[in-house]
């Protein structure tokens, strides 16, 4: 399969990828220092989106495939720690920024 063929078949995905990268750069490039920590922490919580994969993994497993189920549940716990912990801690930080007004 040639490269051109690959590009043609995945054109939409390549569009999405390119736009997401540009968007990510654009969104952040003018952020003030004061927000570096919350921004990083909030983005960190978003990276917990990997939990979706763990949910799909468990859902598509057989009910007696215990290794897959256990590993999947571990994945969900890890992902959820990242998601909930990340958003909660970011909110706590931002709450403090708000207070003094």
């Amino acid at each position, binding site marked *: 399969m040639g490269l051109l063929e690959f590009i043609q078949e995945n054109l939409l*995905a390549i569009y999405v990828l390119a736009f*997401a*990268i*540009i*968007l*990510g750069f654009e*969104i*952040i490039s*003018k952020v003030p220092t*004061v*927000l570096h*920590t*919350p*921004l*990083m*922490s*909030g*983005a960190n919580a*978003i*990276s*917990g*989106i*990997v939990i*979706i*994969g*763990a*949910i*799909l*993994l*468990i*859902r598509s*497993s*057989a009910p007696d495939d215990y290794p*897959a*189920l256990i*590993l*999947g*549940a571990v*994945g*969900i*716990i*890890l*992902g*959820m*720690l*990242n*998601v*909930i*912990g*990340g*958003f*909660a*801690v970011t909110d*706590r*930080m*931002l709450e*403090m*920024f708000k*207070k*003094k007004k």
Partner: protein
Amino acid sequence: MELKILLDIGYFIGAVLFIFGLRQLSSPDTARKGNLLAGLGMAFAIVCTLFYPLETGSNNYLWILGGLLVGGTVGWIMAKKVAMTDMPQLVSLFNGFGGACAVVLGGTEFRNAIVHETALSNTGLFILLITIFIGGIAFTGSLLAYGKLQGLVNDKKVTFNGHTYLNLILLVAIIALLVFLIATGAVDQIWVWVIFVAIILIYGFSFVAPIGGADMPVVISLLNSFSGLSAAAAGLLYNNQIMLIGGILVGASGTILTLMMCKAMNRSLMNVIIGGFGSSNTSAAKGAVGDQVAIEVSINDAAIQLYYAKSVVFVPGYGLAVAQAQKTCKELDDLLEANGVEVSYAIHPVAGRMPGHMNVLLAEADVPYPKLLDLDDANAKIKEADVSIIVGANDVVNPAALDDPSSPIYGMPVLEVWKSKNVFVMKRSMNPGYAGIQNPLFFLDNTRMLFGDAKDTLKKLVTEVKSL
């Protein structure tokens, strides 16, 4: 079929919420709402995934619910209980969990392919390997960063001369194994996978080991972008758009944040990764020349000078966080302002151990946002100040960065505190800073030392100022 379309729309809304959430997170007035929006986007993504029609499997909702509850509850408690001063290590730890999740996913998919004897396409295999690779570095790298920040791991004990070569060898080994696996298709052996994962996890540790000191904010931000990229790679694995978009957004924004911080230190990312600052102290500690004497100032004297100054600039650093002195600092600030002193705070871009660390701590102590000055504004203000008072900062106020080409931090923009009339330095002892670099600032004519724990010293100053 209709359900599927609805859920696809739900995913789309989730992705849009991520984008708006990040956008609003980067502006002070809307940041909190932005975080909530991003959280809502995540809720959309999770709920849609729970009901998305799949071709195989028996849902196993109990397992999912259990995982969500356990992870959610523990994460919530950790986030609520942590002291603000321990924030950098917690963020790092959470990031490690995300990376670990990607590794577990990759590993399980691997195992499934072997057990169920499903053939992986070359592309599929490549994506799987990359997911484990990036996620693994984010996982163990973040764990070590956590250990360093928590004070469990001593920088010097985990690294050695020529560490870069070890990292290079590991990296080459990983890439070789990756190529080997794809070329030969020898993927039906569990042990091959075990070795692959083991080397990657070791590499994650080894990657972060030589990086320390003022470079911690950079590496945390870099690892954050890694965990985003591993999520994106996993998104390709499951052909799931929102994982892909969410992961790429984090990867791209994390990368730009990392580069911004490198730029603030006037160094390249490569230079940070090699670890020139944190570990090498070849010429550094030797700078302690015998005939140089740092002069102390009494609390009483310092209090008087502060109280009758026209303008005072606080320069906070990691020592402020360690001593948890931010509230006492604000107390002193209030007393001085009541006497008509103009008080401001000079914030160096890499002060502390996390990007924007000082801003968070001072916000906790209710210091108003406009009083915090960025590098350029701060340097302008410092020139006119009667007193610059340094609370636990060291490398970011080191004049050697400007005039000593042999210094490891030469070329880094610093806060030029020595240009104010007087400089007070709060410091535990005469030991060189975290990065092991001697600071000529302490020996200048207009510099006076206040030895002791930053919080104790600030408390004494508060008491003294009150009695004036």
